[in-house]
């Protein structure tokens, strides 16, 4: 451990300044865009940047490749939607319940699954996600397969309902992505962040360094689950409808993980860069190629994922000279 604390402090300060500049730029971004569709595209991109940042804490920093994050997303979406439509609790409050339930669910999944490693863990999370999907499809309390519609009543910041204005959602999602980023920034520099990188690098070595592996993984899971669940709650308000397939499906789990993977796992900027590339490409390929109905949009999207994963395994952020702190630097120190 011979890294000079100064260098770290300096770098972290630079990151914070970078984050603040980006936040201002993103806040100004929609203003010159009159086009509602493009604004909507940015809203989705910000949502996925936040979701993937949440995934990154467990999957990137801690190295536990989860393929079941739709579970936390769905729990968050359902919790806030049910509290709002049935009990009249406004979503800004309901989101706290979402976060708490998301964290709890992540702990419950983590408890049996963290004993597994590598692909066993990935498949176990996938199966957990599918189990909850099946249960939701058969559970009357959450309207089973019918899903929950959040009807538009009146424009309101308390209820987070906006008729056609996209700007409020832009700032909501931006705040969400920014908070997720800030959490990642804080934990990255904390004792936990250190433990996670150690766990990811070498479990045995981490244990010898007196890192308590299991609690450390559980902490990452709880934070990750909570962030993802809040994203789910925002999604439900934005789309106005949640059902088992759209809130808990396997493809959603992949969609949440992909921006971080493509952008750079275990990096602060990876999820943002990945989302900025993937979400517009995905939505635009649906818009441009999907209308023909011949599957070309899927081929294009699939080929893009393969190409990016192979060409830039360390993530797109490496193009900007950033290094995966979870990989590169820990190895340097060792």
């Amino acid at each position, binding site marked *: 451990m011979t890294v000079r604390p100064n260098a770290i402090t300096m770098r972290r300060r630079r990151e914070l300044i970078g984050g603040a500049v980006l936040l201002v730029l993103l806040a100004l971004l929609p203003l010159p865009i009159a086009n509602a569709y493009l604004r909507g595209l940015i809203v989705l991109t910000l949502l996925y940047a936040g979701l993937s940042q949440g995934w990154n804490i467990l999957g990137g920093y801690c190295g536990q490749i989860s393929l079941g994050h739709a579970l936390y997303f769905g729990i968050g979406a359902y919790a806030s939607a049910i509290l709002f439509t049935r009990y009249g609790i406004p979503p800004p409050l309901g989101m706290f319940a979402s976060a708490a339930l998301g964290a709890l669910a992540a702990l419950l999944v983590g408890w049996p699954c963290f004993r597994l490693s590598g692909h*066993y863990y990935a498949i176990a999370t996938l199966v957990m996600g599918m189990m909850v999907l099946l249960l939701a499809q058969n559970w009357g309390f959450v309207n089973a397969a019918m899903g929950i519609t959040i009807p538009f009543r009146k424009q309101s910041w308390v209820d987070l309902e906006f008729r056609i204005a996209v700007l409020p959602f832009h700032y909501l999602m931006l705040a969400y992505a920014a908070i997720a980023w800030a959490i990642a920034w804080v934990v990255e520099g904390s004792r936990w962040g250190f433990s996670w990188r150690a766990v990811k690098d070498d479990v045995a070595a981490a244990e010898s360094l007196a890192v308590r592996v299991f609690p450390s993984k559980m902490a990452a899971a709880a934070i990750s689950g909570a962030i993802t669940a809040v994203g789910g709650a925002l999604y439900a308000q934005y789309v106005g409808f949640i059902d088992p397939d759209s809130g808990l499906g396997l493809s959603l789990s992949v969609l949440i993980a992909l921006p971080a993977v493509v952008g750079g796992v275990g990096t602060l900027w990876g999820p943002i860069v990945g989302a900025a590339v993937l979400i517009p490409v995905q939505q635009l390929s649906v818009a441009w190629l999907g209308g023909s109905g011949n599957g070309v949009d899927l081929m294009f999207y699939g080929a*893009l*994922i393969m190409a990016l994963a192979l060409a830039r*395994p360390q993530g797109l952020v490496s193009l900007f000279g950033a290094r995966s702190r979870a990989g590169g630097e820990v190895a340097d120190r060792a």
Partner: protein
Amino acid sequence: MSTAIVVQVALGGLLMGLVYALVAAGLSLIFGLMDVVNFAHGELLMLAMYATFVIHENSGLDPLLQLPLVAALLFGIGVAIYRGLIARALGVRFNTGMVQIFVTFGLSIFLVGAAQLAFGADFRSISNGLLANRTVAMGAIVLPLSQVAAGLVCLIAFAALALISRTEFGRALEATREDRDAVALIGIDRDRVFSIGWGIGAATVGIAGVMLASFYYISPTVGGNFALIAYVTVALGGFGSLLGALVAGILVGLVEAMTALFIDPSLKQIGIFAIYVLVLMIRPRGLFGRL
């Protein structure tokens, strides 16, 4: 509920389980060899089913007689996927585990799109094969001939896989699995072993695809119906274990059928998942997985 129904359902579950086992065997083999989970495995199954359908439509050749043909075709596809994608994915210096997961995910999306482009989105099926719509009756028990045949072919395929593992190539496979780097010293071409491993894995799922095509429908997304069960089966049996895939496949088939019969058909996959979670709590590496 009469005993006959329970026996009938159990036998049906057993036959389906053998198909699950064979689909899982290819996945397990590839994993055991090089620590790669192929998330496009269901799409390989889909390709095999379409191949069977197209050959049947154009030449009238019965699915059963196409077995060697489609197995060879899938072998080629498997080798091509290894050479074109997986070898590269294994060669990257960062995040190897993650890259291979998402490369095969990308491949699966790509193949679904390609199948829709090539064959259209319509549901296809082979309704006039030798085995189609025939049943075997034993007293009160009635079993579809196509599935009985599928079960037998799956068992034969397992026997063949077991034999392969005893050949010289099988020993090379085993050695490569034990220590991928050391084998080069004793003159084994690791890349060749890996690509043949992929070929065999794909051919195995190809055989399952041919047998499924004679009684199941075919569509670009059909692979997904079986893929999830295959992952659970492999994890349940233990990655890399042939015997594990067989036992777990049969177990999954039986549990699925019994859950549907005694609890609720819409919860039958929950039954599978519950067994899986239970086993993992006791044996994190699956029934026959190595530690």
